[in-house]
């Protein structure tokens, strides 16, 4: 892109500039000896064409909507329509959450995003001993199709798109969603949405695993296959770097480990006999947005370019849609402070800009009070308004990939891509993502980064406004959301009623059919769907699978 002669001139000028700066540093020192990005990467004083001397526009960027998708996966990006403003919500009972969803739709939210409580995420009914104290706390409690019917009551499933943060029991919740749609007269091919369904990052960072790796990968590939035929508009997985980053990884690790997980899913599906272009277009990703806006933008661009190359070169994908990395973003929960929580509104605004300038397809913005409790309706509204202000007022959505061509952004994009690729190579050498997780390699890398970050904060090398600098005396915050502790009892009562009124012999029969299928090689989705339709509970269905498959044992290390 740059002529050699011009580069020589720039080099000469750059050297002179540096000599001049070095001379003046004694009198006018810089704020710090070395500058680091949010992820601890070196940041130079000045970026010039010299940093991207081998930059090739068509090879490295191309046009939006075309390989390698660095500039975005759609041709016109937000000039066509804005990203989907999708607020993750759910708490207490299906009735309460249903009210919150209707409120969010009224306020201009464009898609639903369901948060489930922990017992649901781990495949326990609300009356299981381990569910004690947990029912309805971090999301909505769903025990059976009956709860799911209430959750989506009055919400037309052929009109909304719904994202469900559910992993180990993703097949069961997807089956419940399909069954609710049936009752609304909506056929599966009309359904749009996403299940997270990413078990590897549960082993790495998020913790809501149930089954060992092999049956978990089978469930995932079963879903890929089933949806490619029956629910073709559904995103069958959301391969998540979000939680890896929340656990403390760097930006480059977020990309490297997430794409390594992606590679593992693609390999598993190919091994199960699926053609790459039948399922790869429905793969989606989920990333974090932190405060270092320029590094984050480079991260999103690097992830797109690297995935496109992997799909084309490593897996021989032919369909362009298989190569286009589309992703959801959530602003970084771990960047929020419990101190001076109003400051979090500003952090979320910066992170929103990072996600939008990075070309996200959908976005959840965190609320200011999330370091303290689940968000109130008011704080959720401010978080949604933040997206709307960026969309309608900031102008950043009016031209595609506006930061492209910045010497820093392009150099950083390349740097993150290369570092992520080094992690992927290392994981390949270890035998793939599942093996690297068993060995504890990925967890250890993340933990080292997390601990360094904490030490930097405590040593004052990293400033968090309001937390380790600019502190004030504060009154404890008022008006936090509290989940009614009686939710657990209420769910137990509903379960007892369900078990007394449903056709229990049919439930037993369907569960036995599922058990046999688990022991064989059939696709499990139709069996799970049949059990769900008979009002078998989530805990009963997962219980059968637990008996056949066993449970995952975490490798614990510090």
């Amino acid at each position, binding site marked *: 892109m740059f002529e050699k002669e011009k580069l020589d001139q720039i080099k000469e000028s750059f050297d002179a500039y540096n000599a001049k700066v070095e001379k003046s540093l004694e009198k006018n020192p810089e704020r710090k000896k070395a500058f680091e990005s949010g992820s601890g990467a070196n940041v130079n004083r000045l970026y010039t064409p010299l940093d991207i001397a081998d930059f090739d526009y068509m090879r490295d960027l191309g046009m939006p909507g075309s390989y390698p998708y660095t500039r975005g996966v759609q041709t016109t990006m937000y000039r066509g329509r804005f990203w989907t403003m999708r607020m993750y919500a759910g708490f207490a009972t299906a009735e309460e959450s249903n009210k919150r969803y209707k409120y969010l739709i009224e306020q201009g939210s464009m898609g639903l995003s369901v948060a489930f409580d922990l017992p649901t*995420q781990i495949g326990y009914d609300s009356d299981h001993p381990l569910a004690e104290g947990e029912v309805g706390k971090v999301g909505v409690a769903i025990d059976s199709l009956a709860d799911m019917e209430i959750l989506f009551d009055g919400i037309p499933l052929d009109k909304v798109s719904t994202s469900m943060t559910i992993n180990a029991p993703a097949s069961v919740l997807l089956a419940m969603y399909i069954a609710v749609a049936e009752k609304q007269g909506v056929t599966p091919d009309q359904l749009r949405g996403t299940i997270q369904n990413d078990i590897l990052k549960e082993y790495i960072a998020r913790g809501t695993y149930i089954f060992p790796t092999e049956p978990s990968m089978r469930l995932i590939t079963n879903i890929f296959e089933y949806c490619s035929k029956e629910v073709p508009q559904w995103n069958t997985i959301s391969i998540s770097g979000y939680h890896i980053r929340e656990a403390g990884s760097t930006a480059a690790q977020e990309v490297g480990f997430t794409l390594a997980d992606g590679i593992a899913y693609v390999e598993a599906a190919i091994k199960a006999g699926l053609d790459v272009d039948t399922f790869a277009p429905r793969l989606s990703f989920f990333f974090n947005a932190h405060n270092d806006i320029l590094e984050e933008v480079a991260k999103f661009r690097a992830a797109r370019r690297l995935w496109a190359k992997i799909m084309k070169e490593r897996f021989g994908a032919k369909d362009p849609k298989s190569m286009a990395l589309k992703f959801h973003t959530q602003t970084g929960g771990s960047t929020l402070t419990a101190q001076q929580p109003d400051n979090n509104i500003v952090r979320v605004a910066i992170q929103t800009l990072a996600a939008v300038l990075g070309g996200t397809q959908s976005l959840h913005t965190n609320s200011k009070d999330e*370091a303290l409790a689940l968000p109130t309706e008011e704080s959720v509204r401010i978080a949604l308004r933040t997206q709307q202000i960026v969309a309608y007022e900031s102008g950043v959505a009016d031209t595609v990939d506006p930061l492209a061509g910045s010497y820093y952004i392009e150099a950083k994009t390349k740097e993150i891509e290369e570092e992520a690729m080094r992690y992927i190579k290392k994981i390949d050498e270890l035998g793939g993502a599942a093996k690297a997780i068993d060995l504890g390699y990925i967890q250890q890398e993340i933990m080292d980064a997390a*601990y360094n970050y*904490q030490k930097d904060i405590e040593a004052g090398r990293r400033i*968090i406004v309001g937390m380790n600098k600019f502190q004030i005396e504060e009154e404890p915050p008022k008006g936090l959301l509290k989940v009614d502790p009686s939710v657990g009892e209420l769910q137990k009562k509903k379960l007892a009623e369900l078990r007394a009124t449903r056709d229990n012999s049919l439930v037993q029969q369907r569960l036995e059919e599922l058990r046999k299928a688990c022991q064989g090689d059939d696709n499990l989705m139709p069996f799970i769907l049949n059990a769900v339709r008979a009002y078998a509970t989530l805990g009963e269905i997962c219980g059968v699978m637990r008996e056949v498959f066993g449970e995952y044992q975490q490798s614990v290390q510090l």
Partner: protein
Amino acid sequence: MDRPIRVLVAKPGLDGHDRGAKVIARALRDAGMEVIYTGLRQTPEQIVNAAIQEDVDVVAMSILSGAHNTLLPKVVELLKAENVDDVLVIGGGVIPDDDIPFLKEKGIAEIFTPGTPTSVTIDFIRANVKRK
């Protein structure tokens, strides 16, 4: 005390957010304490068994699931039932200020909320450990 302070870092409840637990475990270890980390999803019974078996001086629990009011007091009760009264029990995580007086009343010596420097927790343990 003639031996290093022994700490059980435990994750009660079903949430998988173990960044805080692991960071504090490493910080305590770097501060010269002996640290045992339980891993995720420990029931109060498992935590108390581990505390007794490992003969720890401190049980430090990290919880972000919202079930703290149920699970943390249960650990103190079970320790009492086992006649263990010289173990310092502390907690941390996303725990609203409003819940802290209740937890302290139930015998949790201190609650460390987000943003607490690890040095504060280390100092608290050194000053309050019961076995000397």
